[in-house]
């Protein structure tokens, strides 16, 4: 395996792909949205429970590639207990991390750094960002499904 491929498929990615965290419907959610990647037909639903401006719980349903599934799983872990005002910042931080040129600096994002290798695979950026775009739609309470297009 070349180094680029190892950057993309890190052990932690496989771990989240094979044992996705918070991979369920959330009955008590007060925000949810569906996301769709028309390129591959993958669909994801994000459920969020927000109280007092804080994400109390978050979960996802749907199945996708290793990158999409791991990204959704890791996102749910990163969001729990976050204030809504921090979520927007985190979204932009994540988006910049996976879309910036491979040699560009972007601030560290803790465990989410495992997805930094995606930026070397432009065709896979949408896999990594699907859950995040869907999260934004859920929090903005759009009724219609979002798409990565």
């Amino acid at each position, binding site marked *: *395996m*070349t180094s*680029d*491929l190892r950057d*993309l*498929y890190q052990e932690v990615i*496989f771990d989240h792909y094979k044992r996705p965290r918070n991979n369920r419907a959330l009955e008590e959610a007060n925000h949810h949205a569906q996301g769709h990647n028309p*390129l*591959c*037909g*993958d*669909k994801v639903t994000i459920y969020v429970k927000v109280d007092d401006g804080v994400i109390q719980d978050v979960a996802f349903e749907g*199945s*996708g*590639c*290793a*990158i*999409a599934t791991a990204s959704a799983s890791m996102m749910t872990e990163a969001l729990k207990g976050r204030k809504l005002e921090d979520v927007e910042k985190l979204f932009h931080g994540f988006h910049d991390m996976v879309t910036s040129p491979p040699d560009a600096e972007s601030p560290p994002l803790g465990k989410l750094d495992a997805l930094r290798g995606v930026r070397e*695979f432009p*065709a*896979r950026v949408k*896999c990594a960002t699907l859950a995040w775009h869907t999260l934004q739609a859920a929090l903005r309470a759009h009724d219609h499904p979002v798409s990565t297009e």
Partner: protein
Amino acid sequence: MKMDSEVLRIPALDVAALRRDFPLLAECVNGKPLVYLDNAATTQKPQSVLDTLMHYYAHDNANVHRGVHTLSQRATDKYEAARARIAKFIGGVSTQEVIYTSGTTSGINLVAQSYARPLLREGDDVVISAMEHHSNIVPWQLVCLQTGAALKVVPVNDAGELEMDEFERLLGPRTRIVAMTHVSNALGSITPIAQIIKLVHDAGAVVLVDGAQAIAHVGVDVRTLDADFYAFSGHKIFGPTGTGVLYGKAALLDRMPPYQGGGDMIRSVTFEKTEYNELPYKFEAGTPNIAGAIGLGAAIEYVERVGVGAIAAYEDELLAYATRRAAEVRGMRVIGTARQKAAILSFMLDGVHAHDVGTILDNQGVAIRAGHHCAMPIMERFGVAGTARASFALYNTFEEVDALFDGIARVQRLFK
């Protein structure tokens, strides 16, 4: 005995020599020699096609059917010579019946709007199959919305073969047009198109054949098939993108209104009344893709030189080998196992998404398609969001099939 002598007349392909005709095959991808197995999406172009395009722009470029000057005549002669070559290639039809299009999609839309739309009434049926490409679904949905006609879909069995009993049951007195693929892009199934056309004619309707995947891989003779319309794309038969052909029977084309209005499709224009040009120009409004059409002629000349029979026989061997190898891989499921198949291997690996297969193979220099192949309904029929698809052409080798399976083994090791 007849079969035997036919087989003997087909020369084996000198694939190593053919590969040298395609400059792009010498590319390296991610540091590995390119293994190009995405031919159902588009084919690579031989040097003769590239030279033809270059020569046209460097020496002949002018508009067609207009100028009295020498270049215009030269461009027109080459443009029409390519049409004549295509007419001969698809079964010796009249050049009046060969309409240049921008590809299969525009050919199908032309028939949907110019043939079907004026004809269809509420209560009429349009019949398609469950394994059509979106380009042979959506134009019919549009025309059904416009006219109130109903869209009926012929199911396929678990192997990816048309359910012919169901097909016959769907054909009725209100069936006006049947739009059917010749070769499924997602599964590789070859439909019994001659039998289909006969059944449809007996029911008093017409057939449009989507030949996008057939044209470079199985011999196409629209006259023997008795097809009413046959659409294909140039770029899938080693020609330039943005080219294509719609064949239509002159008797049908004559009765159809133009699809688009503009220059070249008219005989005379006044503000009161416009007289349309004769076939095929009635359907070729505006300055066409002249270089592309001439390039497509060169591509067809190339295919004729290699021989369609030899290509089909060789690709059958490649497919048989790949299918045998696939059967030996634990956790690999081939989607599309029709008895009659073109060289397309659509597959799933247990526990691995097609996109991950595609990325890891690409890292090895192996180019395949991963996804729904613009045929979402047939993906749903097989209960998958998408597949990985290797599709072969005359320049692929048995070693490249091995490279594909080396890559698949690597994917499985990684996802173990």
